[in-house]
């Protein structure tokens, strides 16, 4: 072996000094807070695990427990409907999944300094439903709280209200801060009922707050509820003073949130499956549009058509409008034109502009009636100044497009005229 080769062999032995991995710091179990007794007297149960302590509250409900208009047990027929449908839908839950309704209370809105002080879970068991609430004993006992949630161990489907963008990411933040000691958080399927609520009741509900939905749709009115934004202050007070009286009201608030999640799921499922009944034309139009966006075209068309026959003309503008797009897509030019025309008087001006554009396109490219196409383009163009645009550049672009269409149609029209001559 040559000298160089020997050296090269030895190079492996030399090695670069690798950075020494720091030893995992040992977990020091925190002391219990001074108010352990007081919190237990207020009605909380003390739980200890290898990471410290936390408090717990458990409530059981029978299947026929009524919360607002619905019994909790009605969840099962709802789940059955999805099972029978056997179609892909973001809302569908299969019988194999373990459903957990989930809601947290936090000390702020974002960042590493925002603590989760209450983890609320509601799930079905053999006798009924069980609510389990875990309360942060103090911030030093956070690992104990997270560990107790079993979310590192179980596989569940989390049903929440705005949990996808708030509660769950916040839980991930807390988990990361304790990653040195805790087993990793499992990623779980998320079903966010805020999302479905927005789809169902856009332009129907003025606010999408859960309490608003309860009142207007679920027949539940809260009495003696503390507003959610006070929750942080109440928790601070409980930690500082040791008095957990008011904190119990936050737990009740969280309990109601969770119960309403079940009935909201039931109610929403029914709406998606049932024929038109008590809700507004807007809601059913929203449902039709949602199915359309999910590429369930036939269901969408059926629902939208039902809306147009079931409600008064002034309320069905949007239904005709969306229906028109579906009809255009399947090549029903005449019906599409008819639907756009019917929609026009009952939709806002911004949508009108789009309807005129569609009409102009249909007449120009499908019907080849340039005179009609020209008329609709003219109307659309005249409508432009009435529409508030956020940016000057948007308006300029629109203006350019309409002008282009207008001059193109003028040429086609003239050509047609001379050809005829």
């Amino acid at each position: 072996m040559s000298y160089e080769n020997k050296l090269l062999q030895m190079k492996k032995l030399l090695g670069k000094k690798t950075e020494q991995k720091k030893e995992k710091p040992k977990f020091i179990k925190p002391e219990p807070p001074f108010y352990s007794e007081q919190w237990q007297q207020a009605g909380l149960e003390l739980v200890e695990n290898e990471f410290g302590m936390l408090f717990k509250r458990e409530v059981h409900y029978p299947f026929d427990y009524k919360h607002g208009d619905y019994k909790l047990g009605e969840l099962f027929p709802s789940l059955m409907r999805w099972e029978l449908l056997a179609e892909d839908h973001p809302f569908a839950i299969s019988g194999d999944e373990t459903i957990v309704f989930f809601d947290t209370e936090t000390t702020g809105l974002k960042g590493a300094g925002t603590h989760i002080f209450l983890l609320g879970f509601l799930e079905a068991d053999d006798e009924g439903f069980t609510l389990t609430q875990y309360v942060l004993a103090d911030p030093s006992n956070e690992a104990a709280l997270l560990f107790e949630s079993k979310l590192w161990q179980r596989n569940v489907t989390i049903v929440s209200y705005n949990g996808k963008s708030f509660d769950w990411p916040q839980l991930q933040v807390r988990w990361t801060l304790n990653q040195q000691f805790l087993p990793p958080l499992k990623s779980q399927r998320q079903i966010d009922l805020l999302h479905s609520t927005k789809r169902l009741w856009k332009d129907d509900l003025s606010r999408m707050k859960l309490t608003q939905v309860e009142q207007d749709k679920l027949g539940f009115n809260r009495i003696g509820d503390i507003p959610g934004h006070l929750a942080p202050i109440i928790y601070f007070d409980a930690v500082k003073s040791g008095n957990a009286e008011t904190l119990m009201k936050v737990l009740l608030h969280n309990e109601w949130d969770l119960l309403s999640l079940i009935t909201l799921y039931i109610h929403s499922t029914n709406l998606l499956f049932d024929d038109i009944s008590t809700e507004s034309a807007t809601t059913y139009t929203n449902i039709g549009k949602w199915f359309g966006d999910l590429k369930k075209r036939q269901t969408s068309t059926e629902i939208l058509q039902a809306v147009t026959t079931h409600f008064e003309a002034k309320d069905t503008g949007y239904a005709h409008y969306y229906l028109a797009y579906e009809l255009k897509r399947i090549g029903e030019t005449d019906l599409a034109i008819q639907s756009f025309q019917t929609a026009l008087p009952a939709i806002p001006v911004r949508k009108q502009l789009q309807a005129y554009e569609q009409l102009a396109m249909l007449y120009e490219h499908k019907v080849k009636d340039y005179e009609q196409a020209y008329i609709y383009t003219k109307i659309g163009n005249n409508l432009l100044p009435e529409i508030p645009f956020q940016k000057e550049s948007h308006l300029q672009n629109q203006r350019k497009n309409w002008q282009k269409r207008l001059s193109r149609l003028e040429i086609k029209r003239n050509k047609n005229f001379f050809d005829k001559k």
Partner: protein
Amino acid sequence: MLSKKRTISQLVDEWQYDEEMKQNIVAMHTIDEKQAQYADFPSNLHPSIIKALHGRGIEQLYIHQRQAFDYAQQQKHFTAITPTASGKSYCYHLPVLQQILEDRSSRAIYLFPTKALAQDQKSDLNELIELMDEDILSYTYDGDTAPGIRQKIRKAGHIVMTNPDMLHSGILPHHTKWVSLFENLKYIVIDELHTYKGVFGSHVAHVIRRLQRICEFYGSNPIFICTSATIKNPKELAESLTNSKHELIEQSGAPVGKKTFIFYNPPIVHPTFGVRRSAVLEVRDISKRLFEAGIQTIIFAKSRVRVEMLVTYLKSLTAKKIMDESIQGYRGGYLPSERREIEKGLRTGSIQMVVSTNALELGVDIGQLQACIMTGYPGNIASAWQQAGRAGRRQDEALIVYVAQSTALDQYVVQNPSYLLGSSPEEARINPENLLILMEHLKCAAFELPFSMEDTYGEYEVQELLAYLEEEGVLVRTSTKWHWMSDRFPAHEISLRSAAQENVVIIDISTPANTKVIGEMDTYSAMTLLHEEAIYLHQGTQFQVEKLDWEEKKAFVREVDVDYFTDANLAVELKVLSEDKSAPFKNSTVSYGDVSILAIPTIFKKIRFNTHDNIGSGPISIPPMEMHTNATWMSFELPNNWTEEQLTDALTGAAYAMGSFIPLFIHCDRSDVSVVPQVKAVHNEKPTLFIYDSYPGGIGLSERVYDVLLSLLERTAQHVENCPCQQGCPSCIGAQDSLGENKKQVMKVLNILINEMM
């Protein structure tokens, strides 16, 4: 027709025979070109990097670049002094890229003082990475970053380019989303180190301490690489900013092109009062010559108002051409999109002349400009060289014209060119100990990670401060730790850029259907620039402030066309709160401590363009602003045979002159430190000169004045004595209302004070 196009040397030759020009050219100085000093590539330099460098035609490194690479290899923090166009970015790109190529999990943060600089450097770096043909991801992360790619940057960006503000409020408080960055952070690059001075620098020092704390939590120990323009104390600044020991690289190996400096003093138009022609007008005329000669020029002016005035004047050169964009303004109040357009225009050459505040001093890449005009001394040597560096970046011949204003410092510089050309630059000071600043960041730090009972924060013992925060109700103490316990988001409560935390939004209501925000301004400046009836200039257009909603911090302006601008005054009241240091002399005392200042806007004046006549005035109705800060003050006995009125005038003159010279000693702007005389100070009823930091809590400037007060007085006296005026002028003791003895009186007072301290 004869072409008016000229080269720089032709132009300089012509000016020496031009009657109008030559009488005002006080001095001309040429700095010869300097040859490059090279070093070989390091033996372990990664082949891909070598490939990229070859791709750019680089066969050797400059010595400073090599030194930088070697220090980084030895895992030493270092700071490199890098003049403009010395290839400074290789000082950090090479070690960082080398590290990433050796270990793909490595990450780095590049910190630039502004968004614009980060974006600029990103295109440069990406070009280099492309030449390397390696899969290395670099991104800018700032307020403009699209939400869609933020996730990707957090998880996978090898090099994250950002600014201190974003780090402070967008990254550190959300560190759990950046786990892989913090776990693998190998380098933190701080570019333009010299900009981190004063209040801003003090804030950033804390942002970095918070960053270090988070790195420690995730088990990383990154190396700091800083680059800086020439200042007196780069090593000290870097060390106090990063709380780490630094090596210093002082010698640049980059070549320098020939530079011609012209020192230009406007002619005296009123010999008795020593009044010179306005520098702005002179700059206008010189700019016109450069514009006609076809030379791409940058004009620096010190204030936003000056920039707008010059743009207004200069745009008349192209008024006859339709849609001509070849002359542009550029300053802080413009919207980012406007600024990007201008930067592009400069690079492509469609803009021939740009008028800027110091916003363009920094390394924004605007390509090759041939000439630079400084309207007045920018306040410190480092800035002057940065501005001068804008001309002839790539070894070409460059022209720098310094046009003196009539202020004392400007006149001093024009009469002593060697000061600018030869002397050592000023110090940059930060004061992370400012308790107001420290407490704000301590809150942020506690928000980010809990403090244990043994923890320190940076170099500070903070247990007692944490106990105070517990009393304040934002922390809670458990058995082991201090935890944040508030629904507030502390990072949003601090702005790093100014001590005044709110900005006034400027809203154009000229077209009722189309009101729009055209800019913003800090509250302190707004007191004198956005009061009702003020003329506010934006891109050369005049606006009058119709209504100022001080509560809501909104100024409503309407476009006008008038032939004047406005100038406002502030009255100041001072109270001593505590005395930390004191030195007694025969009949006087010099002290340093905390003071309270009440600033009251009083009146504004309307001043006509061109002639600068005062054509009217009015009151300002804005509530006074109170501020606690640090001050150095000198109290003395009323000299025999002096009346209080005489002393008032003399002290006002002395204060004016002294204030001008403070930037000679400390790297700060003229407005960072104020000198205010009181004939009967509230705390001891004695004549007193106060020198205070213009920022709440102080930033260590006036404390430094405490040490150099005697030199300051001497330098001031020498300048006033040598000033050619008879009764005092704006270049020494300020314009005088009446013909009188005031200049002599000022000299007497200054000499009394000097004798006291000798």
